[in-house]
């Protein structure tokens, strides 16, 4: 391909880069027990929640950041980060879209997410997160009718303390890992979803995250619980404004599926990846884990990762219930100097558990990408089944694609298959398309989309459209 086009791609400006000027109620940088007490107080949390946070904080102090990932970044100064930032007027939060700060709505407009329109047209309830506090929650009534609870985690702590107490930290304990402990100590917001027994959530639930105030880390905490036979599909998508300072994001997502429940969690992640020298992008350290606690339960993770300077993310499934099922579908695209170390863990504990992993990685520019996965079959997981397919596509000779799959198999009746390939876009495929009059660029787009098809078809409709568009933009002009 023409190297100019490649250059163009690498220099591509971040489309979603802008800063909304909203006065923030921001805490000065620094982290100690007082910071945590401040956050807890600000959120109006009960005493047990503060204790829970402090326990995590004290554990975190004794932990060291993980160094095993194939990532290279300078040490993070956790004292230089501000741990609380909320849009103004927290006491006086708008009750409907009309009351929402017009500047906020403008932000969503620029992002191409007309909140009200989208919510109305697509039948999606949007719990919009601007910085760390949910400022607009729609369709709440309709959900309430079905008995579904969908609110911010802070609200849940106040309104449904028993549920939160029962499930929070039951999938990702406070001391699970360095970033999960940090999140447990300082998380400021996130979503809480509770679908009661036998209810199929009447609409897809969605949260748009947006990091805004400068120098603030975003510590989201999401908890989704599906009781027996309940079903929900949850969409998470995010963009962030352009800036120079590295921003730390350490989210925790916990899913709990009881007997026959089904949780589908989809993510499109398009945070600022940094400029062409890799300066300024988001550091994304996420702990996502689903617990298939009940028999025949099913949890499905689908992700499209195109943003962030650093991605450290392993959405996992603990398959505890008999015949429970875990799925992981992922497309990760890295360009410029992005680094991604991502994959999944499938822990088979129960009998007849099944898991599927499909991971597609595309590396371009000077980026490095790793798939890191674990499939563990416990001694009691009779007849467990796993299929893993992870393919990498390389575009350009300065990037890297790596695969580190771990398999730990302790049951003779289990069947575990892993396949991985690494290659570049086939010259014959390109030639074939071009000989039919398709431009080189369109041909690449077609081939790449075909490469990712297995994952895209798992995405909910609106997301699939967005993802394909995102992919085309990301790889514009990058013919192999």
């Amino acid at each position, binding site marked *: 391909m023409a190297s100019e086009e490649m250059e163009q791609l690498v220099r591509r400006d971040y489309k979603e880069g802008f800063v909304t000027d909203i006065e923030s109620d921001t805490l000065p940088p620094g982290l100690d027990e007082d910071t945590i007490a401040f956050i807890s107080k600000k959120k109006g949390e009960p005493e047990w929640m503060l204790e829970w946070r402090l326990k995590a904080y004290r554990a975190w102090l004794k932990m060291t950041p993980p160094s095993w990932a194939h990532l290279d970044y300078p040490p993070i100064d956790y004292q230089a980060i501000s741990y609380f930032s909320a849009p103004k007027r927290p006491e006086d939060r708008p009750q409907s879209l009309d009351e929402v700060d017009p500047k906020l709505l403008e932000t969503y407009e620029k992002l191409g997410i007309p909140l009200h329109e989208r919510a109305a047209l697509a039948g999606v309830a949007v719990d919009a997160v601007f910085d760390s506090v949910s400022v607009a929650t729609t369709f709440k009534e309709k959900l309430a009718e079905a008995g579904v609870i969908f609110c911010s985690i802070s609200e849940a702590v106040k309104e449904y303390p028993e549920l939160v107490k029962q499930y929070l930290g039951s999938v990702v304990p406070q001391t699970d890992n360095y970033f999960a402990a940090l999140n447990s100590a300082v998380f400021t917001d996130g979503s809480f979803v509770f679908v009661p027994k036998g209810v199929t959530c009447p609409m897809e639930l969605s949260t748009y995250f947006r990091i805004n105030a400068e120098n603030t880390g975003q510590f989201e905490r999401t908890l989704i619980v599906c009781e027996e036979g309940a079903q929900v599909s949850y969409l998470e998508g995010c963009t962030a404004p352009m800036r120079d300072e590295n921003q730390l994001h350490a989210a925790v997502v916990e899913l709990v599926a009881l007997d026959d429940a089904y949780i589908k969690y989809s993510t499109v992640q398009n945070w600022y990846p940094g400029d062409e020298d890799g300066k300024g992008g988001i550091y994304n350290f996420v702990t996502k884990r689903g617990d298939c606690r009940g028999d025949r339960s099913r949890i499905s993770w689908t992700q499209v990762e195109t943003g962030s300077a650093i991605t450290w993310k392993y959405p996992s499934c603990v398959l505890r219930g008999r015949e429970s099922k875990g799925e992981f579908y992922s497309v990760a695209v890295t360009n410029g100097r992005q680094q991604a170390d991502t994959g999944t863990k499938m822990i088979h504990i129960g009998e007849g558990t099944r898991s599927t992993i499909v991971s597609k990685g595309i590396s371009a520019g000077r980026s490095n990408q790793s798939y890191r996965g674990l499939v563990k079959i416990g001694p009691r997981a009779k007849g467990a089944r796993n299929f893993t397919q992870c393919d990498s596509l390389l575009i350009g000779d300065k990037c890297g694609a790596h*695969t580190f799959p771990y398999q730990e198999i302790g049951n*003779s009746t289990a069947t575990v298959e892993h396949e991985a390939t690494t*290659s570049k876009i086939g010259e014959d495929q390109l030639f074939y398309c071009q000989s039919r009059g398709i431009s080189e660029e369109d041909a690449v787009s077609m081939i790449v989309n075909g490469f990712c098809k297995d994952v895209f078809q798992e995405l909910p409709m609106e997301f699939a459209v967005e993802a394909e568009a995102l992919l085309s933009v990301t790889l514009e002009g990058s013919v192999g």
Partner: protein
Amino acid sequence: MSDETQRFLDRLAEHRAARLESQGQEPTWIAARRQAGAARFEAMGFPTRRDEAWKYTDVRAIARGDFALAADADFSPASAAALTLPIDAFRLTFVDGVFSAALSQLDGLPAGVSLVPLSAALAENHEAVGGPLGRLTGVEFSPFSALNTAFMEEGAVLRLAPGTVVEKPIILQFLSRAGEAPVMSHPRILVEAGGRSQATLIEHHVGEEGAANFTNLVEEVILERNALLTHYKLQEAPLADLHVASIHVEQARDSRYTSFNLNLGGALVRTDLISDLNGENATCDFYGLFYGQDRQHVDSHTLANHNAPHTFSNENYKGILDDRAHGVFNGKVVVKRDSQKIEGFQSNANLLLSDRAEIDAKPELEIYADDVKCSHGTTTGQLDEEAIYTLRSRGIDRQTARGLLTLAFAGEVLEEVDVDAVAERVELAVAGKLPERFNLAGLVEAAVALGDE
């Protein structure tokens, strides 16, 4: 420093003091390397499961052991003969690491081939060995390579002059004795294959039942342009033996290295096999078969470093695990920046015959060039039910069918073996190891009878 590390260092000090008395000072470069090895070992200590490379292998059985060094190479010729591979070959034999001239066979060694024990090579011209020795496997590689360097004094040096084609295989035989107290040995093998040379090297580890010795092997293999080497490592050490081996190969352009890593014996076995493909069109083929029973632990780590464009690696490892055996497979392909047009294929398949057996597999790819074709596949599962059904429809009972298919599973590696004696020996060993319920005893006897005719 732990007591365990100290115990090995104490052994080293005692041994060196005794050697100094009997043999006098050794050349300064050897003393210096020895010291570097000891220092490195002292600094690192034995690896633990916190070290990524040893995540699935616990070496406490070695660390906690107290091993002396064998003083002689006495071995009854009759029992040695029974253990020796029935192949017309040149042979160097070591008993617990000590060279045995009586059990070796070097008659008719062609011109251009030099096959000598390391001690003799050092005595003859130690400077010629000093260059290549330790160049590929330094003391940094692992605590075991450091320990080996600290103790090194015996082993084998094989040199092939350019253009030499050795028709007969070359056997390096390592015998392990069942003595009163366990011993350790730290053999060192150096192979320098000159340009266009060709040879087959068979490394055979075997011993007396009841032996529980520790072998810590380091091998360095240098292949010049267009050299071809087939390397069999037939490890059927006694079932209580502890075996650690690091094999490091360096390949110049157009060379081809074929490895068969056949692991049947040993209580704790760890092999590291590394090939550096440094010249265009260099090719390495890694074949492996491991069979674990009881509480055997077999760990195979392989690494193909594609350091030059147009290089090829191909790997096929098969594992069968029964009882409470634990298998580990870690295969890695690394493609350096600008090593374009390379192909790297890796395949690993495992069969678990028991619910208490475990396999940990980790096939890795680390790729920094774009015009490559790399793939790996790993499967762990059971025998194909349809294949069992086909055999049953021919009147073969279920268990025998399972036995035959298990043999066939191993056969996919063995059919690549060119030395019949090795292939037969392994096949019989596998058949003999299969659980009794597989009803293969009769078939095995028939096969033996056929072999004898």
